């Protein structure tokens, strides 16, 4: 799709080794870098936007590819486990939206923070939790990143303020996290993510106001996957140009199916926020393949053909793979090896997440507080209290 516009920067990795070539059996050389044109960004109250010409190195490309693929596999495994009734309760899958998370993560500095809603399995993995930590959390076993006590909506990691089960409630919290950065005087930003459905929540407009008033370094990210819970964005929102809905908060629209476009826009947004100009709204136009949650088959308000059309023509992983191969950043075989490696890792994690044990009863009241003021936790019968314990290490304390 993008190959005609792709411009290859010819700097051969093995140039130095050309003289040695006869000594190697394989002399296949790959491009170390390639440039691509992204779809144009749309701007709201911005003079200038990010560059549409983006460059990616071979190492970066392979890393992003692997990350996106791992997220896809984790989500596939989650869906299957849910259908086997091993994962119960809530479960919201990110398949189709991988380029958004991986693109943002690629632009984030190590200490930048992120907070999102409940479609967070992929983010948890990106923020440092291995696939087993995600899957075992979903199955409620002790290897889970919240020791199986949080489930789908409540996973946390350093600088990842987690999922939030209440629609839109994470956005004010995200502004708070960003405000803390401003208060401390560091130059970190916070990405506060919400969907096109939550974009109609009143609290989001309240914090647009506060964030702009105090020029808080918060990036409001509206992941617009086209559908809220049970209906399309067009049927639910008076305005679907979500990047303009901050009114006095400048905004930018980016193709959320293109990982490099998202990365470029996120870089731009971080730079904008850390330069003291205050918040920014970023809308990533993306698509979710599965239903809103597991109880939504996802085909009552859209056709299966539409989903298959996106899968075939706009899939973030498949299109990025095509770019990598067409610009010679890596061979198809190399990517295949990554596919196999990721599959093996996630399969192994899935197996373990199924066979792992649950935490014992004594651990039930553990890790409720980072610094408990009272050791006793009220039980069903008030005269039989449970004792608070600290087992895991607390994250994001300051």
């Amino acid at each position: 799709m993008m190959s005609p516009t792709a411009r290859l920067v010819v700097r051969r990795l093995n140039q130095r080794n050309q003289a040695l070539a006869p000594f190697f059996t394989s002399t296949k050389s790959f491009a170390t870098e390639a440039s691509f044109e992204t779809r144009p960004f749309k701007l709201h109250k911005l003079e200038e936007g990010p560059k549409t010409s983006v460059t990616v190195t071979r190492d970066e490309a392979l890393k992003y590819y692997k990350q996106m693929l791992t997220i896809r596999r984790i989500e596939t495994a989650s869906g299957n486990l849910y259908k086997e009734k091993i994962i119960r309760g809530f479960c919201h899958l990110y398949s189709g939206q991988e380029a958004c998370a991986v693109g943002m993560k690629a632009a984030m500095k190590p200490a930048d923070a992120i907070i999102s809603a409940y479609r967070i399995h992929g983010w948890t993995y990106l923020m440092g939790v291995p696939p087993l930590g995600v899957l075992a959390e979903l199955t409620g076993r002790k290897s889970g990143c919240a020791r199986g006590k949080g489930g789908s909506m409540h996973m946390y990691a350093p600088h990842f303020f987690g999922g939030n089960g209440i629609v839109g409630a994470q956005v004010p919290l995200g502004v708070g996290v960003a405000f803390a950065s401003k208060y401390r005087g560091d130059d970190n930003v916070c990405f506060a993510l919400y969907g096109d459905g939550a974009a109609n929540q009143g609290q989001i407009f309240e914090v647009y106001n506060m964030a702009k008033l105090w020029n808080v370094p918060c990036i409001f990210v509206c992941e617009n996957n086209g559908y809220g819970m049970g209906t399309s964005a067009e049927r639910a929102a008076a305005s679907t140009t979500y990047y303009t809905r901050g009114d006095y908060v400048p905004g930018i629209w980016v193709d959320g199916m293109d990982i490099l476009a998202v990365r470029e826009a996120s870089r731009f947004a971080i730079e904008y926020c850390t330069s003291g100009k205050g918040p920014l709204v970023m809308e990533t136009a993306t698509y979710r393949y599965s239903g809103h949650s597991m109880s939504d088959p996802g085909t009552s308000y859209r056709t299966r053909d539409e989903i298959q059309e996106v899968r075939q023509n706009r899939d973030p992983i498949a299109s990025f793979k095509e770019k990598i191969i067409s610009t010679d950043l890596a061979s198809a075989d190399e990517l295949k090896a990554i596919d196999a490696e990721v599959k093996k890792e996630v399969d192994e994690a899935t197996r373990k997440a199924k066979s792992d044990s649950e935490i014992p009863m004594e651990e039930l009241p553990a890790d409720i507080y980072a610094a408990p003021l009272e050791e006793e936790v009220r039980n069903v019968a008030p005269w039989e209290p449970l004792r608070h314990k600290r087992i895991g290490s607390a994250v994001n304390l300051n």
Partner: protein
Amino acid sequence: MASALTGRLGRQVANKFLPTLLTPKLRLRVKLEHGFRQSAALFVVGSEIKMPSLSPTMAEGTIVKWLKNEGDPIAAGDVLCDIQTDKAIVSFEIEEEGILAKILVGNDAKDVKVGTLIALMVAEGEDWKGVEIPAAGSAAPPSSPAEAKPAASQAAPAVEKKTAGGHSGGQGPAVHRLLEQFGLSSSDVPATGPKGNLLKGDILNLVNQKGLKPKAPQTVLPPAASKAAAPAAAAPSKTPAAKAKPQVAKGSKFIDVELTNMRKTIAKRLSQSKSTIPHSYGGIDCDISEVLKLRKALKSEGIATSVNDFVIKAVATALRQYPHMNCIWDGQQAVPVGDVDVSVAVATDTGLITPIVKKASEKGVQEISAVVRDLAARAKQGKLQLNEFQGGSFTISNLGMFGINYFSAIINPPQCSILAVGTGRLILGSDGKPVQSMNVTLSYDRRAIDEEQAAEFLSGLRDILKDPSRMLLGGVPPSMRARVGI
């Protein structure tokens, strides 16, 4: 059962695919057959697809229809099959890609437990025909977490399947339970109740007399072993290819014959036809002496034709002459059809099917004869293609060979008429001489065809059969009728 199946399949697979399977690219597992057998079977390890839970309360589901066949490539997001949950029919989408290698639970399989292995998939490029069918154990639903109860505590007592021996009356649940508890059969205990019914007290008396001890409940195998065996054992009988044999339950006087899909379709379509189409009927006796003479003459020259071939030709010619009869009903109105495509009812083992003699009016009797023979033969083998039996503008059903004098048939929608052909018989003609007569009865859709039109058609048909040379006349195709002013 399961292992026997795997073993047999394994050897077949090994013999058949050994040369091709030995390419290094294929990820194969060499599985040595147990015992001292030297031969090794080669398998592709497939990924398992289990009965999914597609509603929060679903415990078991019915596979309504597989939308993919074995060997079909699967893309992420494809629908594998439609599954009836406890609430609705839901499409089962698969997120992985590859090739559907083996369907283990076929269409219409009822109440398949969630977690039961229903199919196997292999990666693209692997030999799907060589997929390994997992042995007992691997298909088991996952073990419950750490604090799983010991198997014994969940175990249910063994259920005695024996029918009540001498006791014709019902058994109370308490009686039933006691019999189970002490491992007794109802015939072991003398019954004292009314009508020879067994009472709780009867069993307790016997227990006291003989000092019986309750039997330990029979341990149910852990889920790993028992559940895995179930799908494997159930699979062969549930595959659609296997012919459904009437199952006679032990001691039962009834045989349940499950409908085949074809019978279900026939039932549905005929009920719809007979209950929604206003059928009207008209019959006529045709003199077929000339046809029989002609047929005999041809036969003496070595040209084999049947009376039915002449009937088809005569009907096709008549349809050309009375084109308003050659129509279909589209729900609102009668739509004339250009070609005369005559469907011919053919009986097969599974039910009646109506292959089509296309453009019958343009074919000679000999050609019609050849086409019908070919279609009928393939219909009986179930090898007809969809376009060979779907469509058609008129149907002929002939029971003459059974000696049926006359009968009436049900219209095959969207067609508007069907002709029921009876047997040829000698009757006394108006001139006192014997005449070979054959009754034909037309059922027609009264919405599309008037009585008068049907009568005209029938008398036209009679005239053609009486004088087969009229078949030469043919008729004028509707497309030309306007131009020549008919």
